[in-house]
């Protein structure tokens, strides 16, 4: 037998399996380097994980209503899903936005939309995560501009922008400019964030999308940490002290079906990152050694067949994330293979976390599986396999060069095809899909997006362009263009642009004009 990643698994593990491990397999103490057992000594007794459901659809008004609903249901943090045009830096009235507006997330074209999206939400009391990458600088600027306008000090703003462009080139594939200028814009954000936003995670280094694109757990772990290395190098190259910005780097992992492998992955991730930060980068602050992470259950593992079964899958995955010591968690809804979740489906997903937190008892003890012969051996196997990949990527000249060569992309495509073939050959059983099928499946209700949304949103953005101070917009865009071309931090200029109500598309057009658009070489 093997794990989902192909690591061989024995029938039984004994003390002999630990004896062969470095340090005799002693995982150490929670809250102490290398943090295998968790970054905090008291973990969920000190502070429960944040229940953070990713949400966004339609217009800013639609999503604002869902945010208020989720907060009323006991959710403790916000997480914004943006639509495809926003993710790619196009306004809702751009020809390329045709048919996409508000479909997979919320459309945000300008500061005006952002103000509607967060109406009635206390920015100094909730933390907000934004899944935004290529135009992360623009959305972060809008969030800061909104807080400035409300008189909320910048050092009170807590949250995360994903800003992880390397994993976009590797897996999620929403980009604007090529990898190297993308890294340059991220450096500007790191410098700005380090100076202005002490509670903001500027980059959330994300394995989630790598896994969803079909990688194994080991590839997810290794590529994510290698991306992290590239961002630390970018921060150092921008002249920052490692301990000034490393504590604000956060992570985001998938949590899939293979229960123990997933738990081991979180433990191995913490240990490996701590070693990278301390030994490779010479960080001195313990907070720089910490791998703080968000986790999300695996959308890719959900099945269209017998969708109620997905509730069970999500519960098992969520338990693995908690036993793995995550800091926050999103649980997927059972209907996500069909559409964005309905309110009922998302409520069940949130309730699953609440049951884990308040009924199961698992929050009482830190890393309860620490010392398990099997879990310790598996944690070490995953760490070793991750180091092997990291060494290979180092030899290629680091992750940016590896991405340009298409290396992680090809590794993932191969793993994904291998898995699908195993399913087709029924070497892997997926309940309801290639075994235990049902002849008659009742349909479940799904969320429909009103096709009028696109027309309304596009009209709103056209009206905005007609009513704002266009001389101020042009002036701020010109200043940004000069900074992008000649060097100098672009963030203050982006902030000026959004305050003048320049649109997302207009700001991103500046970057497209200066750096060119990225085109991926198509390979199968």
């Amino acid at each position, binding site marked *: 037998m093997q794990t989902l990643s192909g690591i061989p698994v024995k029938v039984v593990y004994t003390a002999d399996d630990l004896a062969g491990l470095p340090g005799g397999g002693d995982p150490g103490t929670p809250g102490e380097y290398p943090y295998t057992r968790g970054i905090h000594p008291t973990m969920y007794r000190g502070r429960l994980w944040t229940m953070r459901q990713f949400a966004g659809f339609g217009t800013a008004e639609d999503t604002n209503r869902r945010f208020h609903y989720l907060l009323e249901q006991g959710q403790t943090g916000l997480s914004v899903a943006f639509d495809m045009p926003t993710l790619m830096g196009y306004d809702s009235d751009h020809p*390329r936005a045709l048919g996409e507006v508000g479909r*997979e997330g919320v459309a945000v074209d300008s500061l005006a939309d952002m103000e509607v999206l967060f109406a009635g939400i206390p920015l100094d009391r909730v933390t907000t995560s934004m899944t935004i990458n290529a135009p992360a600088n623009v959305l972060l600027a809008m969030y800061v501009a909104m807080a400035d306008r409300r008189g909320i000090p910048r050092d009170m703003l807590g949250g995360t922008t994903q800003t992880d462009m390397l994993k976009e080139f590797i897996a999620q594939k929403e980009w604007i400019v090529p990898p190297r200028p993308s890294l340059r814009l991220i450096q500007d954000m790191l410098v700005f964030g380090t100076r202005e936003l002490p509670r903001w995670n500027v980059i959330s280094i994300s394995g989630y999308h790598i896994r969803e694109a079909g990688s194994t757990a080991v590839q997810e772990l290794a590529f994510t940490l290698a991306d992290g290395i590239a961002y630390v190098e970018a921060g150092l190259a921008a002249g920052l002290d490692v301990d000034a910005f490393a504590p604000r780097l956060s992570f985001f992992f998938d949590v899939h079906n293979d229960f123990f492998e997933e738990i081991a992955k979180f433990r191995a991730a913490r240990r490996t990152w701590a070693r990278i930060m301390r030994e490779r980068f010479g960080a001195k602050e313990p907070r720089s050694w910490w791998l703080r992470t968000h986790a999300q259950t695996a959308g890719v593992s959900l*099945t269209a067949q017998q969708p109620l079964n997905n509730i069970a899958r999500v519960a098992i995955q969520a338990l693995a994330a908690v036993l793995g010591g995550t800091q926050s968690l999103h649980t997927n809804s059972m209907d996500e293979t069909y559409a964005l979740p309905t309110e009922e489906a998302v409520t069940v997903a949130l309730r699953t976390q609440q049951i884990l937190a308040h009924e199961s008892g698992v929050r009482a003890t830190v890393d309860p599986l620490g010392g398990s012969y099997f879990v310790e051996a598996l944690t070490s196997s995953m760490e070793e396999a991750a180091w092997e990949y990291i060494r290979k990527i180092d030899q290629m000249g680091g992750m940016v060069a590896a991405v340009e060569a298409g290396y992680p992309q090809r590794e993932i495509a191969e793993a994904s095809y291998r898995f699908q073939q195993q399913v087709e050959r029924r070497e892997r059983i997926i309940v309801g899909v290639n075994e235990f099928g049902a002849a008659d499946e009742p349909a479940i209700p799904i969320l429909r997006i009103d096709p009028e949304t696109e027309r309304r949103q596009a009209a709103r953005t056209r009206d905005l362009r007609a009513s704002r101070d266009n001389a101020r917009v042009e002036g701020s865009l010109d200043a940004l263009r000069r900074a992008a071309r000649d060097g100098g931090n672009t963030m203050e200029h982006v902030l000026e642009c959004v305050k003048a109500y320049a649109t997302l598309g207009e700001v991103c057009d500046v970057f497209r004009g200066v750096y060119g658009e990225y085109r991926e070489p198509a390979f199968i």
Partner: protein
Amino acid sequence: MARAVRILLAKPGLDGHDRGVKVVARALRDAGCEVIYTGLHQTPEMIVAAAVQEDVDAIGLSILSGAHNVLFPRVTALLAEQGAAEIAVFGGGIIPEEDVPGLAEAGIRRVFCPGTSLSEIVQWVKEHIRPRGVAA
């Protein structure tokens, strides 16, 4: 001997979810088809131009963003405008069952909804797509 079936697989729209289309591409190739993959973020115009230029027998479209009701019919309409309506169009992705009749009306020959197996897709292509200009 008849030549192999030529299929253009394409990702219209802005979504970057390409795990599915790549897996399908490999499966069709393993089944003996000639597969051309456009890459991501294609407009309907780009897809139709590529299909005509490559002289394909069929186009397979993959969308996971929900834009299928707008973008799939646009591809068939453009093919008709260019006098290339004999190129068969099929598609798949996050497409609810209830959208299928509308897409069929727009000339989409087959829609593969969530949960479709690779063998179902390969089987359908083998049965329904013939090299153009060769008697079926």
